[in-house]
């Protein structure tokens, strides 16, 4: 990933983990268009004249407009917000600089909402860790024009990597929680409903804080589950009776409350939710339990649990930042919790039917094809980033990548609704067109909608479309990963001819003229 960094101070040290080219100080005109991402990090170099500073800040806006008109539209532009590294006001009531900074930052936020290729990074979140007089080291400022204190180098690297990760949406999906001494103090089986610690006094208030914080994660689309060695009845009884408990049964999509091995329980959770072990974070106060689980499930994330309840807020902040932070939440993220719960009632329903076709038609599935546009492009990119299991080629793309394909590719999303709810945009196909042939670059379905043969219907829809366009041949690939084994024979089942079959890669083609395709309009409604 090649970065180009617009800057007006010495920042090379802070981005030394990137492959980056730097602009001259304050130069926004010259820039190579062949970079993948563009960063803007400016600071009003510590001038003392308020009017000068304000006019400098105002000029940054014009610089940004210039940059945006110069760099390719489909490339990611990452501006940093402006923050103070020092305060040299003579008059304490003079807040003109603060206001200029505020206006500039708002300008960035507004740009971000209007353009999905702009992702603003809030530098304040980094500076908040340090007192104002520690943000700049004047020695380094004067000898090498450095605006940030080099003492914070490694902490900046870690923070910035997390910011980029949340821009790329590599966050975890599910939190597995222990109960005793994790969500409350004490042991339910021994101390009883009235003996456990949760409520308004220490340590109960620290656990209460932790529960409230986790509830916020749920609101952000993180799936909450329980894995606890307890008597199930005791816990249900507690949830019914205890008025101070914030997290109740309804907040968890799955509860494994039993005496089985925790690793086995977590494996079941991953299967039932159809998500990989590497998308799960396991929180347990017991170090032996953590160690055991980690040994049998090495891909699982198992953070150390704090030794004292008053450290829970810091612990929460850590798991939030490292595992669940996201740059911008899409509508799908926010609805995810409800969707998984709906899937659960769907699964139970499935067991009552022997005939899968009958099952599917009774679900009243409505499929609607959606072409890529400015408002759904983030979701398209997100699907390529997050989908592992039903993903034929597992190619990861950013908003800007997708945007760059729009010119010579067909990009289809599929919105899936049924009588239980709206799954949202949950499947994606990218087909590049070259001469008279089509190449299926990406084809994927979110695990939430699997098991209803929607993948065949979606592919048939595409093949019909390609045939109508007068294309001759379709080329397709299966690229093996650790997770997509379930798609290994997908194209075989669709009667594609195999032209290469190796361990890691299968290549196929299909002559459109020689085949006809039909949609199952009895089973699905297609809009």
């Amino acid at each position, binding site marked *: 990933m090649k970065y180009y960094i617009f800057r007006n101070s*010495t920042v*090379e*040290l802070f981005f*030394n983990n990137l492959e980056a080219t730097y602009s001259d100080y304050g130069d926004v005109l010259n820039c190579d268009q062949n970079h993948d991402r563009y960063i803007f990090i400016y600071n009003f170099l510590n001038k003392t004249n308020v009017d000068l500073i304000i006019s400098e800040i105002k000029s940054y806006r014009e610089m940004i407009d210039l940059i945006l008109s110069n760099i390719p539209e489909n490339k990611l532009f990452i501006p940093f917000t402006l923050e103070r590294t020092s305060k040299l006001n003579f008059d304490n009531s003079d807040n003109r600089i603060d206001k200029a900074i505020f206006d500039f930052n708002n300008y960035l936020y507004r740009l971000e909402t209007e353009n999905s290729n702009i992702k603003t990074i809030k530098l304040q979140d980094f500076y908040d860790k340090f007192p104002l007089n520690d943000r700049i080291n004047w020695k*380094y400022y004067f*000898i*090498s024009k450095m605006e940030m204190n*080099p*003492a914070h*180098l490694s902490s900046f690297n870690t923070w910035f990597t997390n910011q980029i990760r949340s821009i790329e949406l590599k966050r975890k999906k599910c939190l597995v929680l222990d109960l005793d001494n994790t969500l409350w103090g004490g042991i339910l089986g021994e101390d009883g409903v009235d003996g456990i610690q949760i409520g308004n006094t220490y340590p109960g208030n620290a656990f209460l804080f932790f529960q409230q914080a986790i509830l916020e994660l749920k609101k952000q689309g993180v799936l909450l589950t329980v894995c606890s060695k307890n008597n199930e009845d005791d816990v249900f009884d507690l949830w019914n009776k205890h008025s101070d408990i914030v997290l109740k049964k309804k907040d968890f999509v799955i509860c494994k409350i039993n005496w089985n091995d925790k690793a086995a329980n977590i494996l079941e959770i991953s299967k039932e939710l159809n998500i990989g072990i590497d998308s799960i974070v396991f929180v347990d106060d017991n170090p032996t339990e953590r160690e055991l689980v980690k040994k049998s499930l090495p891909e699982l994330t198992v953070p150390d649990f704090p030794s004292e309840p008053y450290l829970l807020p810091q612990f929460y902040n850590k798991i939030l930042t490292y595992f669940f932070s996201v740059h911008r939440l899409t509508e799908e993220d926010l609805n995810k919790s409800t969707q998984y719960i709906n899937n659960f009632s769907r699964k139970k329903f499935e067991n009552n039917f022997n005939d899968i076709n009958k099952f599917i038609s009774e679900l009243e599935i409505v499929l609607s094809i959606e072409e890529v546009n400015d408002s759904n492009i983030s979701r398209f990119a997100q699907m390529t980033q997050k989908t592992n299991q039903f993903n034929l080629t597992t190619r990861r793309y950013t908003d800007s990548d997708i945007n760059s394909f729009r010119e010579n590719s067909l990009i289809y999303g599929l919105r899936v609704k049924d009588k239980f709810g709206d799954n949202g945009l949950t499947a994606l196909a990218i087909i590049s067109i070259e001469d008279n042939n089509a190449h299926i670059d990406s084809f994927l379905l979110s695990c939430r909608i699997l098991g209803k043969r929607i993948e065949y219907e979606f592919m048939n829809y595409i093949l019909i479309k390609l045939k109508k366009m007068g294309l001759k041949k379709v080329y397709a690939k299966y690229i093996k990963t650790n997770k997509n084994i379930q798609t290994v024979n997908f194209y075989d089942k669709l009667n594609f001819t195999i032209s290469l079959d190796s361990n890691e890669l299968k290549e196929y083609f299909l002559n459109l003229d020689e085949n006809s395709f039909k949609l199952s309009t009895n089973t699905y409604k297609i809009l």
Partner: protein
Amino acid sequence: MIMEIKEKIINIMRSSFSDQNIDENSTNDNTDSWESMNFLILIVNLESKFDIEFQPEEIADLNSFKTIYNSILNKLDKF
């Protein structure tokens, strides 16, 4: 003690310059990785790892392992 300090400086230089070839004979002139950004990283690292501070005038004169070593030895001696 002296060997320890030498070794510590060399290790910090190697990691700051991402260059395993640094040794006691390395100078600004004979070392390609000795460029301005790496040099700044080196100064920052030396200051924090030895808990010392270089003055801007001194920094300009640090152009070889030997000058760095002598300067650090001087600073540590003062305690």
